[in-house]
């Protein structure tokens, strides 16, 4: 499965919990959240646009960093 890396402007555990919930809601994703570096690595067959849209639902700034 493709692995993508995203920047998400998370500042605390509340933010990373929010990211966890929206990703779990989307489903079919495996992910790793690096709060201190504001990075989310997602392994999924969803395309990048879908993943980015989902991350942006949290209301935080998010952008695509690239494949891993």
């Amino acid at each position, binding site marked *: 499965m493709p692995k993508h890396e995203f920047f998400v402007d998370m*500042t*605390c*555990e*509340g*933010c990373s*919990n*929010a*990211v*966890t*919930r*929206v990703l779990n*809601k989307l489903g079919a994703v495996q992910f790793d959240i690096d709060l201190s570096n504001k990075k989310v690595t997602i392994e999924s067959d969803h395309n990048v646009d879908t993943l980015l849209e989902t991350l942006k*639902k*949290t*209301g*935080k700034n998010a952008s695509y960093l690239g494949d891993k």
Partner: protein
Amino acid sequence: AESVVVCVEGMTCSSCIQSIENQVGKLSGVHSVKVSLGDKNAAIIYDPKLQTPESLKEVIDDMGFVAAPAD
């Protein structure tokens, strides 16, 4: 306009508040939104023709918080 208070779980800091106020505030039919970290809720004034307590709850839920209408 109507007003509703929605309980919100999972907010921890001012940036959580900011994102909810921004996101809910830009919905059509929402006149004002005031989020309280201490009270764990969001007080929203809205146009009942365009939004319902359910739809507002749904938006906050979709943002990754746990929302429920307050009684």
